[in-house]
């Protein structure tokens, strides 16, 4: 029953999204633009940053960025649905509230998965070399992180019910996370104080872990920390999300 309900919600979300050409095109163009417009800038820097291959440094950062930001903004769609009465109509059915959330998250996760494949595939054309199993694992971590963010974003959307409140909240979270996680440039090139601040950013460990995975280092302490943080965020995101969806009057 639960999985059937989840699937009904997922299929509905996906169907509506796929019929929206903007959703499809923007989703696919995003990773391409990053690779084409930002990749060339990094290539000459790769040596000074301590990487043999610029793309094992760059692509993991982009993956995490897709996972974080694509999914964090997923909640906006829910506000529109709430306004149209869809959320209430679904909540008055006997369907599980968790299924209503999970079906939506699965769509965002699928989008992220496809974007990640496109990104990694294209990066090969640009000259990415590294461990294929590591890349697969890196993609899995990204997807889990994305699921956590999508769940949190949906929870925030259902709590605030207003784009005007949600946009500044998300931006104020997103900017420090982007700057302090070493998504675009590794934190190691920064001054001491900046590195210390970034130590408090769970996503930094995740980016670092995916970088190591891409180069084929599976069993390092960095990788372990990244996996642990991913699982913690995943659990926390799903907890907050389901709690909000199960709450009455949400």
């Amino acid at each position, binding site marked *: 029953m639960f999985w059937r309900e989840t699937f009904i919600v997922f299929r509905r979300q996906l169907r*509506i999204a796929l*019929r929206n050409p903007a959703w499809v095109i923007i989703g696919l163009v995003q990773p391409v633009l990053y690779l084409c417009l930002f990749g060339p800038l990094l290539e000459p820097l790769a040596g000074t940053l301590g990487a043999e291959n610029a793309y094992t440094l760059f692509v993991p950062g982009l993956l995490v960025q897709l996972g974080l930001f694509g999914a964090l903004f997923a909640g906006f769609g829910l506000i529109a649905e709430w306004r149209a009465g869809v959320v209430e109509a679904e909540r008055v059915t006997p369907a599980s509230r968790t299924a209503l959330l999970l079906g939506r998250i699965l769509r965002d996760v699928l989008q992220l998965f496809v974007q990640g494949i496109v990104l990694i595939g294209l990066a090969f054309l640009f000259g990415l070399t590294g461990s294929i199993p590591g890349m697969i694992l890196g993609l899995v971590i990204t997807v889990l992180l994305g699921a956590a963010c999508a769940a949190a974003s949906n929870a925030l959307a259902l709590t605030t019910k207003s784009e005007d409140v949600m946009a500044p909240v998300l931006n104020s979270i997103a900017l420090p996370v982007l700057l302090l996680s070493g998504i675009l440039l590794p934190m190691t090139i920064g001054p001491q104080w900046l590195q210390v601040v970034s130590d408090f950013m769970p996503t930094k460990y995740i980016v670092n872990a995916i970088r190591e995975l891409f180069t084929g280092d599976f069993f390092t302490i960095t990788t372990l920390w990244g996996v642990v943080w991913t699982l913690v965020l995943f659990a926390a995101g799903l907890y907050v999300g389901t709690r909000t969806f199960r709450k009455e009057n949400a």
Partner: protein
Amino acid sequence: MIHARGLARTFEGRGRGRKDEVKAVAGVDIDVETGEIVGFLGPNGAGKTTTLRMLTTLLKPTAGTATVAGFDVATQSKEVRKSIGYVSQSGSTSPEARAGEEIMDHGMLYGISRRQAESRGRELFGQLDLEGLWERKPQAMSGGQRRRLDIAMGLVHDPQLVFLDEPTTGLDPQARANLWTHISELRDTRGATVFLTTHYLDEADALCDRILVIDHGSIVASDTPDALKRQVAGDLVELVVADAAQAAAAAELLGRVADAELAAEGATVSARVRGAGHEIAGLIRGLDAAGIALESIEVRRPTLDDVFLDLTGRSLREDA
């Protein structure tokens, strides 16, 4: 079908440093029998939607109990949800989805099979004059069509009890009249019990077997539309005398049968008279005997507007 006792809901408003309690619904008793169409009438902010959301398990009561379709709303919410259809004010479909797919998905969330959902959906589209709109997006439908689609969504699982929250708000008169026919048919052809909220008196009058009037979170009246009109206001009798000088004398005679205060303006005298049909013959004889010639006499049955004014001291249109 619905039995509520002392159902109440208090919201905690968050003021600056202090806690306000807002009593949205202050303990209502509601009884609705199978096959009834009951109207829940009140101005905006009276507590209609809050009550409805409690009865449909969307909101937990802070006090009191309610059984809906035989199940307790607090402890058996899943069973309640299976047995009821709820058509909310805000709609139920995404503007960019397709109508047929929306109704099928909705039905399947109720646990019915894909095939069943499709056949029920198509049948409802037929009954609600939505033929040919199966592939249409709600954003390309008229207001009346969208509202009927919402109703179809609420009926896809064949509920015995349907809640309609302000079903005709925002529709043009023709679409409203059309929707009224469909709502009556819910009971007449399907045997469903209907509980609807409205702030249109004519709608409650035209559709409902019984009306509950709610104001400031409490039910102030419950009866049939006719009984309410009889009980509260009395008929309005308006006399226009031929000679304005005789107005005072006419007023005196009218005052003998009148229920409430007289209103006199120039040659016109009017008053509420309980059972005017019965009193009017004597009144005319009396006027005749006193030699008072009449320009016109008019008896107006009270409208529910009058009832509402009488019950709450304000007109229904003075929205909160």
